[in-house]
């Protein structure tokens, strides 16, 4: 009977509203109870969390694990280790692997591989269309039965509105959300960074904010038409945030996530032509960053997700326009969120915890993100004041593409507990 008590931490559990110094008692992989001075017998392992924050395990609903197909960039195992080192207990890999996760056999492969090799929970996201080609619907029902918790053609948005409508209708029938990477591919074609003063100065082709906006607008109208649960991935533009808020005010089941880097960086913060700053959506202008931050504050944005996107150095060490999009982000998410949101007093610590726990759990319908008695014992322990410096060369990820290498953070992950087991400790 494995038993663990996390002693004396500040327990913040948004699912119950608890925010107090307490012990968390775990037994046999589930939460046995939360309270003051919980009794424990002599065989009970203890973790002293004095001065730390103890919360339900963090969920990253948007990562890329690159397996199957691109194991040179990341594997389910290495990605899960990076997740644990970032304080995450559950991650949701997007389907753009090779083969694409567009059928139950691929889903099952990922689930099985994760069961054997991953040190955190892995909930795959399936493709919307076959091969994510945007034409024919993928095997959504059987993928759901095999374990996908949502569908998305992340990175290759469904351009055909009719196909998107059918996907929403179908997904609604299976009770899973449709997640869209919102980008009108005609408007963004050839673009390498946000379209604005910086792209003009650097002579790089731009991705206008409008390429995101028109897609969000279309999808919200389709969500209203179909009654689907619809989620905007990595929201980054001012108008997109406004439209999500509008959709919520109309009572639609529309949610959104923001990435830490879209909260932390503008297009002007980029080291010129450094591909560690190249991702989609691109780092946007100050007004957009402020609007995304405001969206987090007001609740228009429901979750923080990293869009952890590993690429090997050989792909990122090229002419800027040739480099692939994406940066890794699992290990810096807590540090950045504290820095951007909590330390400046924009949101409370409890609100931040919500964005990583009940927020994504509710969107995906997961039985996690809570310290309720009997729930799976996923626990994240982090500090809000311990200073540490990110060294990307020590990352658990197989890739090194982060703009935050060498950055010093105030506060970050301390220990990660998955199903009652300590899988990572600082």
């Amino acid at each position, binding site marked *: 009977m494995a038993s663990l008590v996390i002693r004396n931490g500040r327990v913040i559990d948004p699912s119950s509203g608890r925010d107090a110094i307490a012990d968390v008692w775990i037994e046999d992989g589930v939460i046995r109870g939360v309270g003051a001075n919980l009794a424990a017998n002599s065989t009970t392992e203890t973790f002293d969390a004095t001065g730390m924050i103890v919360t339900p395990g963090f969920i990253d609903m948007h990562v890329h694990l690159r397996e199957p197909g691109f194991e040179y960039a990341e594997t389910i195992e290495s990605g899960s280790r990076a997740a644990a080192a970032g304080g995450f207990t559950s991650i949701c890999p997007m389907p753009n692997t090779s083969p694409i996760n567009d059928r139950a056999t691929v889903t099952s492969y990922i689930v099985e591989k994760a069961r054997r090799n991953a040190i955190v929970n892995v909930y795959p996201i399936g493709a919307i269309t076959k091969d994510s080609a945007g034409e024919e619907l993928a095997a959504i029902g059987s993928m759901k039965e095999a374990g996908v918790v949502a569908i998305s053609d992340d990175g290759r948005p469904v351009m055909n509105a009719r196909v998107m409508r059918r996907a929403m209708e179908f997904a609604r029938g299976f009770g899973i959300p449709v997640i869209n990477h919102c980008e009108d591919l005609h408007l963004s*074609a*050839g673009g390498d960074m946000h*379209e*604005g*003063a910086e*792209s*003009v*100065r*650097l*002579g*790089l*082709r731009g991705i206008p904010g409008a390429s995101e906006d028109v897609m969000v607008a279309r999808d919200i109208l389709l969500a209203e038409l179909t009654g689907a649960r619809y989620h905007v991935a990595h929201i980054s533009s001012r108008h997109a945030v406004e439209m999500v808020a509008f959709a919520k005010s109309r009572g639609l089941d529309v949610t959104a996530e923001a990435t830490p880097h879209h909260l932390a960086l503008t297009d002007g913060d980029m*080291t*010129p*032509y*450094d591909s560690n700053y190249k991702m989609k959506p691109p780092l946007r202008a100050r007004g957009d960053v402020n609007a995304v931050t405001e969206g987090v504050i007001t609740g228009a944005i429901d979750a923080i997700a990293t869009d952890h996107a590993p690429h090997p150095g*050989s792909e990122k*060490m*090229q*002419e*800027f*326009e*040739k480099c692939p999009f994406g940066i890794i982000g699992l290990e810096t998410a807590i540090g950045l969120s504290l820095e951007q949101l909590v330390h400046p007093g924009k949101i409370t610590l409890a609100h931040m915890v919500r964005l990583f726990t009940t927020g994504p759990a509710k969107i995906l319908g997961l039985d996690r993100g809570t310290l309720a008695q009997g729930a799976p014992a996923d626990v994240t322990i982090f500090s809000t004041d311990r200073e540490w410096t990110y060294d990307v060369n020590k990352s658990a990820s197989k890739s090194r593409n982060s703009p935050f*290498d*060498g950055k010093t953070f105030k506060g970050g992950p301390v220990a990660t507990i998955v199903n009652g087991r300590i899988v990572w400790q600082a």
Partner: protein
Amino acid sequence: MPSREQPRGLLGIENLTRDQIQALLDRARDFQPAPGQSFPRFDLLRGRMVVNLFYEASTRTRTSFEIAERRLGAEAVSITAQASSVSKGESLVDTLNTLAAMRPDAIVMRHSASGAPHFLQRYLDTPIVNAGDGTHEHPTQALLDARTILDRGAKLEGLRVAIIGDIAHSRVARSNVYLLSKFGADIVLCGPASLLPQELAQLAPGVTLTTDMTEAIRDADVIMMLRVQLERQHEAAFPASEYFQFYGLRLEHLRLARPEVIVMHPGPINRGREISSEVADSQRSAILNQVENGVSIRMAVLEQVLGEGKK
């Protein structure tokens, strides 16, 4: 993180000071040939080795650099993309590291990707001279343009310069804007709206935008026409058939400008597309002076970058 210290080469005009630019412009005069003579030989860079690496087709810029290198006594090797290992799939970084291992004293580089030399300079100790990167900068072009304007007796301060054409995709325009602005010129950028993003006005102080060519040319001291770079347009941003009608420079336009107006073009010119033959061959045209100054400016730049010249 890569180091961000100031590289020793010449990557662009944007980060140069007015004094640094003035020094190059002044020094270039020493290298100008006497009327009717060829460029004088100097042995300032004897024993130095320069590699000219051209990933994009170029006749005049490459030749101009080669002549400048030889007139300074340096040895020059020129490599073009078609003949190099690029066509065998080698990455840019690997190619540059290979070349750097042969210990040239400088690499002159043209590349179709914006920022390619800036990216490389972060990893390479060999100084890089940017001979044009994508749609970003073309610093020696702006320097030779300024030298040409000064040679015609004009002062840069208070000068009204109209730059006309596909501004969005022009590295010549960007470098000229940075240079002219540092000297207090008034710069009017003009072209079809789809090739004239509003953010261009924020490039530097003293920049205004217009889509009306007559407005751009009115009272201009200098008219710089840009080559219509159809190869840089990834879509039909402007109907090609209408270009000359609305943005081609013809003799009648010159009447709107100052009487002593100078017409410039970075070449190669498309007669009948952005400039009429009559204008290109007129007294007001300084196009061949620009070509000539290309050599003397590049001599000044190479001398400065290779660091052995006497100022």
